[in-house]
């Protein structure tokens, strides 16, 4: 039997994987993918709770998170392209004109 705890543990694991990915990876695209993983772990939590509470608001929120994540992805990739055209690198250690 799959219980709420299973979903929460999975989403917690996904969230932590995302955080660790953001903090340790050096390629901006991989960092961005880790951020998407964090958002999706939140989505999973929402859907799991929504199903177990018998309450659709959580599923509705997931729609908004997905739409916003798509908009964020579009803007983020555009920013990455702009920086790649000027610097020809996406390694965030090399993007360091401003003091970090």
């Amino acid at each position, binding site marked *: 039997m799959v219980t709420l705890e299973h979903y929460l543990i999975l989403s917690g694991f996904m969230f932590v994987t995302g955080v660790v990915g953001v903090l340790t990876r050096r390629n901006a695209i991989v960092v961005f993918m880790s951020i998407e993983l964090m958002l999706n772990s939140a989505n999973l939590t929402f859907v799991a709770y929504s199903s177990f509470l018998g309450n659709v608001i959580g599923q*509705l929120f997931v*729609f*908004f998170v*997905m*739409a916003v994540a*798509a*908009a964020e*992805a*579009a803007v983020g*990739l*555009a920013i990455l*392209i702009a920086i790649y055209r000027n610097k020809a690198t996406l390694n965030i250690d090399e993007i360091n004109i401003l003091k970090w």
Partner: protein
Amino acid sequence: MTEFGKILAFMILAIVFVIVGIFTAYLIRPHRPTDEKLLTYECGENAQGSPWVRFNFRFYIVALIFLIFDVEIVLLVPWVLIYQEYGILGFLTGFIFIFLLVAGMIYEWRKGDLEWDRPESEKFMANTFKLPKLTLPAKKIKEEVTN
């Protein structure tokens, strides 16, 4: 045996079948390698350059536009399910959203992001206050063929 059990049995059977087939073929086939035979098979031609070519930047813009419009449609699903409960105002509220999406699309159209070959800036600005013709790639190919 449950339904999943049957699927498991089928999967085991499939794996065994493949392994047995390959193993028997290995036992009975002749083994005479030559240089020609060991070459990677690439459609009969030797590979020219790296397969990691850069895609045209235009694909990226089209992908982005697709991504955004595709996902925004998700927001229409809950509205479609319940708008009747809110009467005419609920119906119009959904149309506001669709109108905003259309406004965004007209913006992209005007900015030339739906054109496959981006118009020259002069040509682009020459007919201000007129929507440029939307030329789809398929139509253009047909024109080229008839020419």
